[in-house]
């Protein structure tokens, strides 16, 4: 009895002692960075400032940050980053990156638009890029990175309409801002395209292209971080009969995936920004496809161009044509999507690229 009481702490102490007694590796292997890395280390410094969502928002900050991480490992650049807490801090945070002697500073989100432009004017020798924002007449050192997400969302809407059994599909957003509603609007127009082509009347719940309004988790940025709120909206759409959902709400969208998973195969939910089967893999079975927005690729390319000296101020627009916006693979749903639908999606994609189908008003 007594022994069993004493044994665990003794074992713990032993383990601790053992841990503390390990011999450090020899000095030659102590610095593995130089020996194992095949990428030459560069003096070039790439930096990033998040918006108030932070780099762990499972949404556009995090995806943009993945581009910086990729540049670090593949190009061997130095990096630094600042997370913002308040909107009032943006200018100060961008300035901190200027002070840290960065060669390119990537800022994330339209809220940093003014601060980034002011810093670009003041520091012509530093390159600036901004995700989800573009300027009419940018300085030579300032590049906007925007994404026409209505294009792949249009395809997603068409796909959803082909999959629904109830004749109703749904969508909701995190917050009513253009970067969110462009998904929802494209999705609704894709459904309309299906209805016209097939003579059906699949209804879209949660967004009206005519009214330009729909369902949102919250009025403010907190709408992106509220999984329970997302689940509530998803449940509401399901109660009205929707069986294919498109949540455009960052982490809140996980609520829709949970609701879909709990429905036991009756309801499917798509994903946005990245391929949901990769970023939210445990829900892969309920994800027919995802609307991709390749912010990481755009950020990486901007950093690479700045490093290689080929940086310019032309606005980068991610589209189906340049794969900056894309419809992700069907993954586990590959067999459930008919060959006919697949062929039609290919045709529509070609038409969107050719400009014969418009995905916006």
């Amino acid at each position: 009895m007594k022994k069993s009481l004493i044994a665990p702490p003794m074992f713990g102490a032993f383990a601790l002692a053992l841990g503390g007694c390990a011999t450090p590796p020899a000095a030659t292997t102590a610095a593995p960075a130089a020996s194992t890395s095949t990428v030459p280390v560069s003096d070039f410094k790439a930096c990033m400032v998040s918006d108030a969502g932070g780099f762990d928002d499972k949404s556009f900050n995090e995806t943009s940050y993945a581009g910086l991480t990729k540049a670090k490992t593949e190009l061997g650049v130095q990096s630094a980053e600042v997370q913002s807490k308040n909107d009032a801090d943006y200018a100060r945070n961008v300035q901190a990156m200027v002070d840290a002697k960065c060669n390119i500073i990537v800022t994330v989100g339209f809220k940093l638009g003014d601060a980034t432009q002011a810093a670009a004017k003041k520091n012509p020798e530093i390159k600036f890029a901004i995700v989800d924002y573009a300027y009419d007449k940018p300085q030579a050192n300032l590049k906007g990175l925007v994404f026409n997400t209505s294009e792949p969302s249009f395809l997603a809407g068409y796909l959803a309409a082909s999959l629904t059994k109830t004749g109703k599909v749904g969508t909701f957003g995190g917050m009513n801002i253009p970067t969110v509603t462009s998904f929802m609007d494209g999705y609704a127009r894709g459904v309309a395209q299906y209805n016209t082509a097939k003579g059906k009347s699949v209804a879209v719940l949660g967004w009206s292209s005519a009214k330009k309004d729909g369902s949102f988790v919250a009025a403010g940025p907190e709408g992106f971080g509220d999984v329970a709120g997302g689940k509530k909206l998803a449940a509401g759409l399901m109660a009205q009969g929707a069986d294919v959902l498109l949540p455009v709400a960052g982490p809140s969208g996980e609520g829709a995936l949970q609701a879909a998973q709990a429905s036991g195969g009756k309801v499917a939910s798509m994903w946005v920004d990245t391929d949901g089967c990769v970023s939210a893999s445990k829900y892969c079975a309920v994800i027919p496809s995802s609307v991709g927005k390749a912010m990481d690729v755009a950020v990486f390319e901007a950093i690479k161009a700045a490093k290689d000296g080929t940086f310019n101020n032309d606005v980068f627009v991610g589209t189906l044509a340049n794969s900056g916006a894309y419809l992700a693979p069907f993954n586990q749903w590959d067999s459930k999507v008919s060959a006919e639908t697949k062929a039609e999606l290919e045709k529509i994609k070609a038409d969107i690229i050719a400009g014969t189908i418009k995905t916006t008003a």
Partner: protein
Amino acid sequence: MTNHTVSPRPTFAGYLATRWRDWSVTASAVVLALVVGAVVMIVADAEVAANFAYLFTAPGLALGSAWAKVSTAYSALLLGAVGSPLALAQTTAAAAPLICAGLAVGLAFRAGLFNIGAQGQAIWGSILAAYVGFAVQLPPVIHLIVAVAAGVLGGAVWGGIVGWLKAKTGAHEVIVTIMMNYVANGLLAWLLSTALFMRPGRQDPISPEVHPTAAFPVILGQLHVGFFVALAAAGAVWWLLDRSTIGFAIRAVGANPNAASTSGMSAARTTIITMTIAGALAGLAGAQSALGASATGTPVPLTVGLVGTVGFDAITVALLGRSKPLGIVMAGLLFGGLSAGGLAMQSIAQTPLTLTMLLQALIVLFVAAPQLVSTLVPILKARTSRVAVAGGQA
């Protein structure tokens, strides 16, 4: 009065002893928070933590890397907060709205009211101050005064509604203020989608830039006149509480509303007045956010997140400052310093923002639990008990 011996007559020595205890607990709380923060930094860094496997065979490696990590981070914190005139200016800029909102919470607290609504009141302050700032053309100085007054008025109305509801219907101010925060946030988001507030040519919910005539004049770097307005507000609150009749009523109602009513003071009237003044102070915090200079020298346009979490940070500022104006100014400066220094920690030492927020939370945790602090710092305990004995003799 002769047989009234419940408490000893306050003496200067006794006053100093209490003050010393308050200050030393607060100071110890800050130090303890920094120590815990250092431990978290070491544990959270995989590379540094891995070196602790060799603690007994190569202590230099483990302790050296831990020291390097912690000292880099904290010297960056210090450098960013007070290391240069520009750093100090940044600290004051971050402190100004915190002080105003802290006063809003602290003043209400003195009347026995939990003002959780400084957030919503500050949001209204920022909405009206920014609107007057970008939509109206007025000469310099006058424009600024009108914009600030509009912000103060917005906050006062938003806070006054709470006081009125509490006084007339008995609605609990905690529930009401929390709900009013949501309403204010929702209204701001809606306003930013209307032509009245939306920037021409853009679809994003962001307002036009405030005219320079409405901005607080810059003194050095980010230090602007708004900081001195915040200090003046603290002075005014001190005068109000310690020198005015209203302040006496506020404190009396806060101490015992029934006794105050019995002695002829209207608890209802005091509640409404307190919440209105508190709202005005929070509105001033919102005006600070909307009209204060950013690092570019111009104010930040109105967005849904412009005031950040100032109303909630204000609760911790008021708590740390023990709801006294001077204490709130000090606490506001400390948190302003943590904000400015936290940025330097991120950009120079690459320490995540979460750590600064953790430090703030730890400081408040330790301040809120003075018993815990004196248990963890034995010297303090010995000293305080001796002080208590000395105080008893006096």
